[in-house]
């Protein structure tokens, strides 16, 4: 994705057309800036991010479990 395309998407997220799905998602509370950033990644990079996030979440839960023992 080119820099200009990225900026166009960010502009859409920052100022979504009234009544659009983007506006609805934003009002609902979805942080679309994350989605836009992930669109810049390859599918492999996205999977790696998910794996890293999962590892972190599991480590967190393990830390909490150990605290309550």
């Amino acid at each position, binding site marked *: 994705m080119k820099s200009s395309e990225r900026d166009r998407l*960010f502009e859409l997220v920052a100022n979504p057309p009234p009544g659009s799905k983007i506006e609805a998602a934003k009002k609902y509370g979805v942080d679309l800036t*994350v989605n836009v*950033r992930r669109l810049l990644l390859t599918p492999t990079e996205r999977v790696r*991010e998910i794996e*890293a996030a999962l590892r*972190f*979440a599991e480590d967190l839960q393990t830390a909490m479990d150990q605290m309550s023992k």
Partner: protein
Amino acid sequence: MIDYGTTLKVLIIADVNFVMVGGYAAVAHGAEIVVHQCLELCYERTPENVKRLATALAPYHPQRRDALEAISFVLDDRALLQGMNFKLQTDLGDIDLIGQLPGLGEFREVARDSLAVNFHGVSIRVASLDAIIRSKRASGRGKDLNALPELEALKQLRDSGKK
């Protein structure tokens, strides 16, 4: 690449005062793991702390996620004190720095209702489940309100286990 474990260690080593809030704090309390989320940190807005925070994150090239690429942004103590909440993209992943949380307030109030957790040898503060619930209820956004049934059920399960 996402490495939130390193993010936490870097901040603790730099003596930054923060509390983990939001989705990962909920995950820490046992909520369903949602991997598409940022690391949300409520930071203390004192001049000394924001300086430590900016210095600690600087090597990881923090940039605003919600700004056009052409707009240059430098995360320093002045920028942090002029704003309140920051959606950042860094080499360690997406980090939201939150100065004030709905229903809770600023760092001091959030820290008062948090617990210390030993995470890989460093002590981090995580918002309590009660605090997360209050904040999500106060935000009033659909996404946060939809998370409440699970969090409130978790709280009831946890409280039942204590009896």
